[in-house]
């Protein structure tokens, strides 16, 4: 039965001979026709609303108001004077700067560990990936209960070791790190899977050669693994950064009344946008904040792909 699979398939490298012929043009036309559907979807569902939001950011656009006067850059000026916005912006960078490296490092460590074990690999992969497919609201709430000051599981454990109860989510200095921890816990599995795929692609012959030459485990990791999985790191870094720039549901479920407290210490840009848009109805103002977030994401992504990408050839 297994032989049946090896039927002759068209050689992948072989170019069709009829480039430029009418048949090819007809095919291309068909391809474009087919493509136009997703393209249309992209335009209507993604691009147009984005452009519309950009336009709204120049208006005093209160959702229920009858008129929407043009205000130019006033929303942007107000934004950078709004302590609430500036705090959310700062917080957002904390999420990225702490969360992304942590998740990547832990993801890589777990991936390496799993790769080195011979038994139950699938089980470990499954266990580490499980949080990633769990609803983040549920994850947030479970952590919230575990991190309660009185009667929370974490404090109960600390108590056994004689450590006094911590405020955790109730403290303006600890709360943001508690939330980052929950997000890392959840996102770890995703990073792990990506890294596992990256590690699989590193030829074992390199390691064997290095081992013969007497390279230490660290040297092998530093000079073979790390450079060769660089594309994977770049990809994870970019995806992770975008993810952490858009943190919302974890904060929404882990802070009291979803307000990003205490004292705004865990509020993210997205939560700020949500509150201005759907609680205060200030669509123009919220759109301006959205555009700022968009620019930040774009800039960081471009920067990352420029700076971190280094081709390594052996």
């Amino acid at each position, binding site marked *: 039965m297994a032989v049946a699979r090896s039927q002759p398939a068209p050689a992948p490298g072989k170019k069709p001979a009829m*480039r*430029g012929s009418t048949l090819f*043009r007809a095919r*291309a*036309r068909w391809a*474009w*026709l087919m*493509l*136009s559907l997703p*393209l*249309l979807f992209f*335009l*209507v569902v993604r691009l*147009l609303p984005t452009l519309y939001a950009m336009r709204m950011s120049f208006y005093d656009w*209160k*959702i*229920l*108001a*009858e008129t929407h006067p043009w205000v130019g850059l006033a929303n942007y000026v107000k934004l950078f004077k709004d302590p609430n916005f500036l705090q959310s912006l700062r917080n957002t960078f904390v999420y990225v700067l702490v969360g992304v490296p942590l998740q990547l490092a832990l993801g890589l460590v777990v991936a390496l560990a799993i790769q080195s074990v011979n038994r139950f690999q699938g089980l470990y992969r499954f266990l580490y990936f499980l949080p990633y497919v769990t609803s983040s609201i549920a994850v947030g709430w479970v952590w*919230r*209960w575990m991190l*309660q*000051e*009185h*009667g929370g599981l974490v404090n109960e454990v600390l*108590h056994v070791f004689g450590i006094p*109860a911590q*405020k955790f*989510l*109730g*403290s*303006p200095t600890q709360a943001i790190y508690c939330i980052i921890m929950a997000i890392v816990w959840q996102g770890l599995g995703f990073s792990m899977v990506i890294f596992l795929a990256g590690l699989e692609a590193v030829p074992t012959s390199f390691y064997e050669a290095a081992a013969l030459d007497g390279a230490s485990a660290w040297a092998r990791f530093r000079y073979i693994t790390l450079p060769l999985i660089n594309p994977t790191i770049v990809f994870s870094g970019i995806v992770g950064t975008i993810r952490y720039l858009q943190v919302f549901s974890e904060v929404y479920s882990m802070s*009291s*009344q979803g*307000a990003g*407290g*205490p*004292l*705004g210490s865990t509020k993210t840009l997205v939560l700020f946008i949500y*509150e201005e*848009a*759907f*609680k*205060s*109805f200030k*669509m123009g103002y919220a759109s301006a904040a959205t555009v700022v977030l968009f620019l930040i994401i774009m800039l960081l992504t471009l920067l990352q792909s420029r700076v971190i990408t280094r081709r390594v050839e052996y």
Partner: protein
Amino acid sequence: MQLKMRRTAALATSSALLLTLALAGCATKSDGAPKSGTPAGNEPVTIEYWQYFYESKKNLVDQLIKEFQDKNPGITVNHVTFPYEQYNEKVAAAVSAGKGPDVINLYYGWLPLYVDSGYLQALPESAFQPATIQKEFFPLVDAAKMDGKYYVVPTAVRTLAMLYNQDLFKAAGIAAPPKTWDELVDQSKKLTKRDGSGKLEQVGFYFNTGGQGHNWYREVLTRQVGVKPLSADQKKVQWGSDDALKAFQWWVDLQKVHKVGEIGFMTDDVTAFKAGKAAMDVDGSFRLGNLKDVPFNFASAELPVGPNGEKHTMASFWANGITKQAKGAKLDASIKFLQFLTQPDVMERWTNATGELPARPEVAQKFANDPKLKGFIDGLPYAHATFFVDEKKDRQALIDAVDSVLLKNTDYKAALQAAAKSVQADFDEYWSKRK
């Protein structure tokens, strides 16, 4: 070849764009199509009613609609509910799409926003005479009036009162709930329990800001030290004044000094009270619906009085209004439906089903001896409905003020003033745009 490809791409893009425009065009066209004439005859008419989802309310309204439709053949009421959290999003989306309900249930605190935006129409005086409303409803319903006109009318109202766990009181040997601020502090101390390591096991009084705490401070505690929370013209925030500081400090000291409760204990006050781990909680009458099958005895009492001995409480309500979308036969049907919802017998059933209080004194009378409702009902004659420009921001300002005293040791006065200042800025912006 390259060129050809590019041209094809351009073609695909532009055809996609054209299609989009065509679709958009269709949408506007069908929207602007002339509606069929709607003479006020007996032609069947369908109206849409929106409220947020609350099980007991939804079930009752479903039942009421059935009865209403039986009495008014030809009128169909579409009942739409959605989660409370989505209320504003839902309305926002519907309004921008030019759709939405004919009759809408909204929080009185959002009224300025909805009226200013031209979303609601004033209730026609022929059907709802201002003088009659004034005479037959509790005075707090006046908060539904803007520029001398009523825009909404409530079926039920809510007040704040002290919920107390009678079993815990009995166990601690306390006979009656607190009548004064001082008694509240004393009793709470007796009712608070900690284990050997200082871990809270039971709070005597649930100190909170985000639940009803901010309302209690703003509308009740300030008045009890002789400060009106807002100026008479509702333009100036006064709850942050030096005179109000006494009230603020007394309030925050419940946790900071007396340690009778703690923000966030068992997540929130409702959970703690329901679990029998909070002896007292200032909450609204709407909570009674959630407390139907708790395994302990509880009752409600009037809020304790402060230094000036005056009784005050905060009132709030969800009320029904008619949107500008309702015209002709739809408007007539909407008026009928609204009148039906505010009838005395509907109010009585509403209270029985939801625990919300009747908006008419004559109906409220009937519940005055119910121990669970008593504290709330007694408060109705002296209840005040706060005027909000942005309810969410007002609330957050006070939450942050208390947090900064408790968590960052900020000076009481500085914290309170910062809160009042930020709210005043919202008030100034709001009033500057009104003629």
